[in-house]
């Protein structure tokens, strides 16, 4: 384990869409060490689901490959890297635009990257055509003390 992090995990699975739930639930379970709220956890699950769906539908185009996830915890921050060795993205800026999709026939909305950007604190996409794509996202979990203070204020106001 890299000593720059408090904790780290790796996950690899075959690119089948039935594994999307497995992936987001696993990362949510790992992230729960940081004491996130239900909303923070829901944001992480959604972002992971979007990134994994991209690997399966776009990276591998529903052929079989391996999706890799590495998650690291440091302080109150979780970093999640999700990668494939699929076809890659030719123009990342265009791919990230809201509503842009190369697969409207599959009823894809083109909102995947927009959701990842909005639900996480940072998101970076690296891709090489023919070699694959890696998405790196981070989220900072709000301090429990602050959450307790907020709850206490609400309680006193009642």
């Amino acid at each position, binding site marked *: 384990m890299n000593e720059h992090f408090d904790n780290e995990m790796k996950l690899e699975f075959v690119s089948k*869409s039935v594994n999307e739930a497995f992936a987001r639930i696993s990362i949510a379970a790992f992230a729960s060490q940081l004491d996130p709220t239900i909303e923070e956890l829901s944001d992480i*699950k*959604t972002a992971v*689901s979007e990134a994994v*769906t991209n690997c399966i539908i776009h990276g591998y185009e529903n052929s079989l490959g391996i999706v890799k996830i590495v998650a690291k915890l440091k302080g109150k921050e979780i970093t999640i890297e999700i990668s494939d060795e699929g076809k890659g993205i030719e123009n990342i800026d265009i791919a990230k635009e809201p509503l842009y999709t190369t697969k409207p026939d*599959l009823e894809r*909305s083109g*909102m995947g990257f*927009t959701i990842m950007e909005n639900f996480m604190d940072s998101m970076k996409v690296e891709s090489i055509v023919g070699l694959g794509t890696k998405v790196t996202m981070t989220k900072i979990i709000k301090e429990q003390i602050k959450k307790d203070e907020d709850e206490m204020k609400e309680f006193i106001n009642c």
Partner: protein
Amino acid sequence: MESKFYEKDKLLVFKITEEIDDFSVQMIRRKADYEIERYMPKRVVFDFDSVTFMDSAGIGLIIGRYKFANMLGGKLEVTNLTNSVKKIFEMSGILKLIPITNL
């Protein structure tokens, strides 16, 4: 997903009971289109009360059923949106097109 058709009002209600992602929408889509075609409803309502997770696959699902119902002369509405479902729908702008209703 459970469904119920009210003949008198030509109302077809789908209550989604599973997590909505790219895997589950395939089954939901097939079942919904089959029933919309079978009943030819005037109103189609998707109920999200029991939905514990949804990603952007839900946006494609609703836009697709909106188009399909429209093509067959019906209107599509959504109801009981949870906070996380609402957050995703609002981001996509589809609530400008599809009304939130109470049953």
